[in-house]
């Protein structure tokens, strides 16, 4: 892609204090370097074209999980997406679906975080603590790969048709996080967590659609975690 090329951003706009209805605004964004990121484009809009545009970002390197967005119909992080990889010059940017819009691209993630907290995402110990450390063998540690990397960006839950349909559905992120502790050799909280997941708004509501897997910017696999949790529930006779 040569420099001095322009692409159009069509961005969802809504300011509850001014606007009656949401609308879409179009900006021309200059491609200033090969491999330019979507976030650089958004910054260009905010800093040079229209300071009223609101969006979240912080780390700009895929670590903080603030900038999950719906880009041309797919959820992704703007800081991990190259504009050229989108394969089109017309880019429609919308807030994450299935969440309240606070303003422009900023969504309310309260509900998402509360569901995350609901599954007790921390080590639970019942037996007395050992003298030194909680030892975990390298093999057991390996089981957590593909589970602990989650940055809570919300792309997965927000992409899920069951999450859209059912307000109370815990969602793929909560399941992935729960599973991360369920299979941790140091954790003893399975009896606390499994009854929460064994719910009609819990793991049984997933239709194995894989939208969450497609959306996750960290290449994690919530569906696999869901299958694992169901297996645990069945094996333990819930």
């Amino acid at each position, binding site marked *: 892609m040569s420099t001095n090329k322009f692409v159009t951003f069509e961005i969802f706009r809504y300011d509850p204090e001014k606007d009656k209805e949401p609308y879409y605004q179009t900006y021309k964004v200059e491609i200033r370097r090969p491999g330019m990121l979507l976030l650089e484009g958004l910054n260009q809009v905010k800093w040079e074209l229209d300071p009223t545009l609101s969006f979240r970002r912080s780390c700009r390197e895929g670590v903080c999980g603030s900038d999950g967005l719906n880009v041309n119909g797919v959820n992704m992080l703007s800081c991990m997406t190259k504009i050229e990889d989108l394969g089109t010059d017309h880019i429609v940017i919308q807030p994450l679906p299935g969440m309240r819009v606070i303003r422009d691209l900023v969504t309310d993630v309260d509900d998402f975080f509360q569901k995350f907290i*609901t599954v007790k995402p921390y080590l639970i110990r019942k037996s007395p603590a050992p003298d030194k450390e909680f030892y975990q063998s390298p093999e057991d540690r390996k089981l957590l790969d593909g589970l602990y990397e989650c940055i809570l960006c919300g792309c997965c839950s927000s992409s899920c048709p069951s999450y859209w*349909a*059912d307000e*109370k559905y815990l969602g793929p992120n909560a399941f992935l996080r729960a599973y991360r502790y369920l299979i941790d050799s140091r954790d003893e909280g399975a009896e606390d967590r499994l009854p929460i997941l064994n719910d009609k708004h819990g793991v049984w509501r997933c239709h194995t659609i894989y939208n969450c897997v497609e959306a996750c910017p960290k290449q994690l696999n919530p569906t696999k975690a869901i299958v694992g949790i169901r297996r645990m529930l069945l094996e333990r006779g*819930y």
Partner: protein
Amino acid sequence: MIKGYKYNGHGDSGLFEWLLQRVSGVILIVVIAVHFFSMIKSGEWGLKSIVLGPLFALGIFHTLNGFKAITDDYVKSTIWRAIILAIYWIVGVTAAVLALKVVSGL
């Protein structure tokens, strides 16, 4: 303030329906295939009660449980859901009675 929601995992957690949807599905593959391919020939195997029994019983459950899953996804109002669920039950029981009639009339 972030605090957890209350999920308890109750009697109608959906585990049983989920499992039975899968078990009935797999059995239905066999019995429907037998029924279908035999009916376009002689119909000798397709009307045996070992085929028709599971077909009707599991088929009615699988269908209406599937319809319920769809209702739960698209119908938001609790009242409408209850009404529709009641209709499914009525249809299901009626179909089961008629199915018995069909089998016994053979």
